[in-house]
Structures are given as C-alpha cells and as structure tokens.
C-alpha cells in the first residue's frame, strides 16, 4: 500500500467523521421541511446550544462519575443535552413559528433568520463572546490499530471519530425505527404528504409538528456534543457555518428526504476534507457553497429527491 493510498484513506476517514456531523444536523433541516415546508434557519444555533448545554451540564455529571472522563459520563451528558435541545426546539416552534402558520412562507423564513440572530446574540450575552474550553467527557486519543492490519497501522483513527460514527449510526437507526415503525412516525410521514387529510383523519397536527421539531433539535444537540468532544473550543457563533453546510447537505441529498440528508452530509464531509487536503485549506468553506450552486443548477431536487409537481 503506497503512502499516497494511506493518506487518501486517512482523508476519507476524517471526511466521514465530519460528514456524520453534517448528516445529524441535516436530518433536522430535512424533517422540518418535510413536515412544514420551510427551512428552519435557526437550526444551526440549536447545534450551538447543544454544545453549551454540554458545557454547563458536563462538569456536574463528571462530578457524579468521580471526575473521571468515561463513556458513562459522555452518554449521560449526550442524553441530557439532547433533551434540553428538544425542549428548546419545541419552545422555539410554539413561540415563533406556530403563530405564523397561516402566513406566506417568506414570513416564516425571515422569522427563522431572526430567531437565528437572536440566539447568536443572546448566546454572546449569556455565555460570553470568548471561546470556552469544553469539558473532557472522553479522552479523544488515537487508537492503536492491531499489528495484523499491516500497512494500515499508519492510519490514525481517534476514539472521538469512532464515537461520532458509532453514535450517529445508532441515532439514525433509532430515527428510522421511529419514522417507519411507530404511530407518531406514520403521522409525521402522513403530515408531510398532506396536512389537511391528516387533520381529517384525526391526527393532532400541532403535536406531530412539535414532536418533529423536538426530534430534529435533539439530533442537532447530539451533533453539538459530538463536535465538542473532538474540537473542545466552543463559542456562541459556532453554529453558523455548520448550520449552513448542513443545509447544503440536506439540499444535496434532496430536501425532505431523510436518506438524502444522510447521504448529502457524508458526501459533503468527504468532499470538503479532500479539497482541504489536496487542493487548498483556504477553500474549505467555499466547497459547500460551490456544491450548493452545482446541485441547484444540475439537479435541483437533490440526489435522492423527486421532482414533485404541485397539483392545484
């Protein structure tokens, strides 16, 4: 195995772990779009709130676990942060989006942008504008690959990356089970298809919408914790760029399509890492937007999306 091949595989691993984060956030965008037909631009800031939930909850949980970082502590912090973000998501929906449900879509869109700005500024006011050090929940170190893997031992896979990939897979499995096998999941799919018919069928639309928001926000919160484990420097503006890139990932995969969000996230993560590694690190952020332009020009419905004709 040549050195270049090893380097390429290394970049793929890095890209996959980055893509998993984008996928988690993109799932929230896509679910809300599927159910409400609007892009919740404040979603990236829920990611930031997840990281800060972990920042405040983390030390207390660690105390409970004898101040030693470990998987137990990390799991508890993850679940608590997901819960906090779910609640916050539902509150945001009830306060800011529900009253505007009968209004034109552009009104809600601009409100979403306003909520995003509010969360960022309020975050800077409450948490302070300076970057803070996220508490160590698990030691993010490189794993010693078994010698029998031969040349592959030159690869670096960190515990953080493994946790991110593992947790993302687990969360996606749980999400799939919820959406495909539960009643509330069926209600979500039905609502995405036709809200009026849903109401006629006796579904409590408001509850399903709140549930969708809560679920999406919980995933964003999880992404916030997983990112902070790997990059322990958090600040109130950290959600802007990942939020935008996850939005691009959702569009890339086909907005409204859950599998598309995952696919889009992974593709975007890998492409971004490859461009940084082989072209130039300064183009890192430009990649996402170049991808957005390309996909809208070539295949606006997204990779897995279908062009749905609106029947009048």
């Amino acid at each position: 195995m040549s050195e270049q091949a090893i380097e390429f595989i290394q970049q793929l691993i890095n890209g996959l772990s980055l893509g998993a984060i984008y996928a988690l956030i993109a799932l929230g965008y896509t679910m809300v779009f599927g159910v409400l037909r609007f892009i919740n631009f404040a979603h990236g800031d829920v990611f930031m709130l997840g990281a800060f939930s972990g920042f405040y909850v983390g030390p207390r949980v660690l105390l409970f676990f004898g101040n030693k970082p470990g998987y137990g502590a990390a799991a508890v912090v993850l679940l608590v942060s997901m819960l906090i973000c779910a609640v916050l998501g539902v509150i945001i929906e009830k306060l800011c989006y529900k009253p505007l449900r009968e209004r034109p879509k552009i009104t809600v869109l601009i409100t979403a942008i306003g909520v995003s700005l509010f969360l960022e500024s309020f975050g800077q006011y409450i948490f302070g504008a300076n970057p803070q050090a996220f508490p160590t929940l698990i030691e993010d170190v490189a794993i010693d690959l078994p010698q029998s893997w031969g040349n592959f031992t030159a690869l670096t896979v960190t515990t953080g990356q493994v946790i991110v990939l593992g947790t993302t897979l687990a969360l996606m499995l749980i999400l799939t089970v919820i959406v495909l096998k539960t009643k509330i999941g069926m209600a979500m799919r039905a609502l995405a298809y036709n809200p009026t018919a849903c109401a006629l069928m006796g579904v409590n639309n408001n509850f399903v919408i709140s549930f969708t928001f809560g679920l999406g926000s919980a995933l964003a919160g999880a992404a916030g914790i997983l990112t902070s484990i790997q990059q322990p420097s958090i600040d109130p503006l950290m959600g802007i760029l990942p939020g935008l890139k996850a939005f691009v990932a959702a569009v890339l995969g086909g907005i409204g399509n859950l599998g598309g969000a995952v696919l889009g996230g992974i593709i975007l993560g890998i492409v971004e890492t490859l461009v940084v590694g082989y072209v130039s690190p300064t183009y890192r952020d430009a990649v996402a937007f170049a991808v957005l332009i390309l996909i809208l020009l070539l295949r606006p419905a997204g990779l897995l999306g279908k062009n749905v004709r609106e029947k009048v």
Partner: protein
Amino acid sequence: MRLSILLTGILTLTANFAARAQNEIPVGEFASLTGGSASFGQSSHKGTQLAVDEINAAGGVLGKKLRLIAEDDQSLAGQPATIMRKLISQDKVVAVLGEVASSKSLEAAPICQENKVPMISPASTNPKVTEVGDFIFRICFIDPFQGTVMSKFALSNGYKKVAVLTDVKQDYAVGLAEFFTKHFTANGGTITKEQKYSTGDKDFKGQLTSIKAGKPDAIFVPGYYGEVALIARQAKQLGIKVPLLGGDGWVGDSLLKVAGNALDGSFFSSHFSAEDKSPATQEFVKKYQAKYSAVPDDMAALGYDSAMILAEAIKRAGGTDGAKLRDAIAATKSFKGITGVITIDEKRNASKSAVIMTIENGAMKFLDTVAP
C-alpha cells in the same frame, strides 16, 4: 427671567464640562476585549489600566489626570477603523494605545496618521505597522527579529527540517512565517511543507496529515492561541511526536486550557516572563496580582509599558499638542520598562530581547533570553 435662569444653567454646565475637560487628558485604547483573541485585549487592557490608575494616583501627568477610553473591537476586522474614527472625532483623544494584533493595528494606523494622532502599539510585531507613517510607534520588537529567534533556536537544537503551518488571515502570522523561513533556509535548514489555515478554523487534520507525511523535525506554527491549541491537540491525535514552535501569538489564557498536555515539549518566543527575577518585574507581578488575582502575561506587561511611555512622553513634551507629543515619543531613550529597556529607533520600533518559553506539564516555563 426664565431665559436668564436657563442661560445660567447652561453656562454652569458648560463650565463644568470645560473644567472637567481641562483637568483630564483623554487617551484612547482599542483592544479585542471579546471574541477569538479576547485574551490579548483583556490582558493588554488590564496592564494599561493598571498603569493609568498608578499614574493618576500619583497626581496624573502635568497636573491632569489621564482618562482612559477603552473600546472593544471584538477581534473582528473592520471594527478598529470605526473605533478609531470615534475616538478621534468624538472623544478627541490626544493619543491612542493599541492594538496587539498586527492586522488590527494596520487597519487603524492610517486613520491615526491622517489625523495626526500618535498611536503606540504595545505588541504588534509586523514591520508594516510603523511603516504607515511617522505618528505610528511600537514598543516591542518586530518580526524580522522574532523570526530569526525561533529559526536560530530550531537550528541550534538540531531541527534541520521544519514544516510551516500559517494562518493566512493574519498579517502577523504571514510575516513571521516569511521571516522565519528566510533565515532558516539561508542557514542550512529545509522547509519540508508549507500548509495554511484561516483564523476561526477548527479542523486541521488535513493539513497535519500532509505535514506528517513530510517527516519534519519540528512544526512552526506562528498563529494565534485559539487555533494553535486545537492544532496541538489534533497533531497529538495523528501521532505527530515532534515539537511545535511558535511566536508571541501563542500567549493566551485558553491556550493551555484547550490544549491540555498536547503542547508539552513545544517552544515559543515572546516578550516577557513573570518568572524573571528582577525586582522591577516581581514588583509589577505583585501589583498586577493584587489588582486582578492573576499572573500577568506579555500583553499585560506591554500594555503597562505603553501607557507609562505615553505618560512620560507627555511630560517631556510639556503638553498634548499632536506634533510635539509625536516628537517626544520618538525621542524615548532608555526607558526602563517592565519588558526591557526601551529606546524608540528612527523607524519608530523598539530593539528588545525576546524570551524563549517552553511548555512542561501543561504550564509555561521560561527557558532563555535572546538579545537582538
């Protein structure tokens, strides 16, 4: 009757303001008190404030108290220019202290030069800052010197092959990398790889993977502490065992909090060490600790010196007239500052020693002093 009462009132108020203005010397300061490089601004501001309080407690300058007007540029480009205009036109400051970051100094300097308001930067090391005009000064060393300090250190420690990882968004980092590379390659060293990143980036695994492949003896990272901490962590994760080398941009309170033990065994150059045993330094450290319950870093010491030098220059100029004050600052000779003996040369820079610091067990430790 009513009109005369109104007039008396207005006259009394204006008289009060005039009296207050006559009894005070407004001095402007701009620093990054919040944001990605908040440590720089908060430290330098604390040092500056300590000096101003000391001066005012001793009676002020020429019988008048100094009024320090500090503004926050939030570590964002574009803010220094706005702040400078406000300080000069609204607050009518006689001089400006700032900034630590060279990019921000470069942004504000032309405005000070245009309005003939002297500007003293405590810690901007990029040579371009004082080249803006004759009203712009600095009291620290410049990067052509700092680059050679680290380069000589690397060569003398046997690091013949070095990779360079530069922050392309900061004039400071780009300049320092240039000067390091020039001296290093001219004296027998080779640069294995040059990689770049931007301020605010969080992931450097791509660049580090590429650097690791070149098998360097050390990696030169002349950036700011926020990114350096993350770079050190990720380098350790990728199995990079060679030390990191850096400059005074590493001095930030969150550097070691975020990096943990990942920076152990690395080296960087800077202006000041609180471990220095000289009585002046120890007295300064005591005063600073009494007021702020923290140990002062370079930026605090330089902030302190910049305010002290300005006050002394105002005394020598006998007033705050722009041109006279500028000449007085330019004539600063052998000023005994906390960070060294400061003489402003004809290029409006100071020629001072650098200190080399290392990091052991997650704490900074003084290693050596290097004279120019």
